[in-house]
């Protein structure tokens, strides 16, 4: 579904992605682990073209996302993206955050959009918070609204960029639970995370990135438990 072909990216002199090649299949849950600065966030941001690449290709269902004929806004509607800092629209209620895309992009009527928003909020357990502004919600609740907002667009794949890193520890669980349910229902997911436990439990595949390259990849049991490579072993010993 998503293919990275020797993807390269520089920030000035600094190379963040140094020839990443890999594939995410439909229905698969891939988690990206690695220390900060290893390029994992940048990598998933290239899929929805929040970052452009300078070398190689990112293919979504066989189509180069940087291609001239690609309608990027249409493509982005098929790819849900969840940010570390939630990035909810603070002037809109929880439901308003969700209906905006439905009304403006799906051309849904207000009532229908509202109904859909309620369905999604219900799915993340926040139906009772529909009319609250984000400032009245806790971090975990905000992130769940952000997930609901992405899901409302019926994406083919969900990308998560460190979805729990900005949360207080006691709120991490509620967000991970939502994500776990999503995975169990067959959603294709790419998750950048520091939650090794989540990777072990939910992921089909783990990619360990270091210095802009996938150094190790495979099923979590194999990658995480038999960390042969020195860099992964030292990373795991620091995070676990």
């Amino acid at each position: 579904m998503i293919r990275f072909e020797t993807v390269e990216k520089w920030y000035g002199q600094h190379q963040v992605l140094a020839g990443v090649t890999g594939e995410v299949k439909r229905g698969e849950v891939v988690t990206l682990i690695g220390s900060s600065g290893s390029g994992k966030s940048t990598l998933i941001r290239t899929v929805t073209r929040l970052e452009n690449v300078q070398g190689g290709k990112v293919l979504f269902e066989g189509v180069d996302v940087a291609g001239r004929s690609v309608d990027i806004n249409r493509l982005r509607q098929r790819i849900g993206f969840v940010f570390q800092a939630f990035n909810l629209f603070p002037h809109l209620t929880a439901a308003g955050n969700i209906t905006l895309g439905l009304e403006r992009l799906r051309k849904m009527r207000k009532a229908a959009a509202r109904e859909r928003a309620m369905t999604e909020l219900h799915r993340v357990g926040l139906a009772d918070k529909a009319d609250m502004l984000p400032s009245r919600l806790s971090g975990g609740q905000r992130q769940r609204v952000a997930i609901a907002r992405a899901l409302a667009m019926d994406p083919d794949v969900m990308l998560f960029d460190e979805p729990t890193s900005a949360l207080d520890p006691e709120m991490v669980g509620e967000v991970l639970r939502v994500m776990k349910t999503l995975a169990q229902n067959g959603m294709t997911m790419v998750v950048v995370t520091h939650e090794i436990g989540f990777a072990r439990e939910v992921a089909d595949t783990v990619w360990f990135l270091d210095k802009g390259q996938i150094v190790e990849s495979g099923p979590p049991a194999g990658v995480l438990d038999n960390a042969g490579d020195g860099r992964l072993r030292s990373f795991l010993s620091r995070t676990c």
Partner: protein
Amino acid sequence: MLQILKDNWLLFLIGQYPHGPVGGLAMTVFLAVLGLSLSFPVAIGLALARLSPYRWLRAPATAVVYVVRGLPLIMFIFWTYFALPLLIGHAVGGVETLLFALVVYEASYLSEIIRAGIEGLPKGQTEAAKALGLGYIPTTFNVILPQVLHNMLPSLVSQFVSTIKETSLGYVISANEVTFAASQVNNQLMTQPFEVYGLLALTYFTLCFTLTSAARWLERRLTAERGGLGVQLA
């Protein structure tokens, strides 16, 4: 002073109306309100053009803003007074001239406030809108501008206050606002300039002070509720 007020309060308030054109304080407020309302969409256009990735949009907008902000308003009013009739081919009254000059002038200043507001929003807002698949128009008008304008409300009020004061320059081109009315009264009485202009000062001060106080109150309220508006936990 009271006698002057008693004899001329109507002239101060509404000019020679109904025996002549509306003027006085009514015209001042009218000019300020209309000037600011008309300049608002222009300012948004200028700000967006200034932030545009396209040079052919950015360059002229930047030029306009810099030129206008580099000129004293009085000079700009003279310019308009002499240039506007040439451009459109017939005479233009004082009020219209002043209004035009005010709109362009205020728009240049407002556009800088709006631009700063847009640039001050967290980058994540645009990114989240992009990631949803929203294009430029809905991102700008449904996500960015509502937040910017909300945060801008206090500066808008202070801009309104300076606009009120700036309308007094209309006096030089005989736009019959309140300063013009005061000078008419002064010409009639001849001997009491301090009293007449004292009344004028009091009028401006009362109006502007009320508005600045309102702005301060508004600002406090916005800061209080801004817990999650504009600023988000990063």
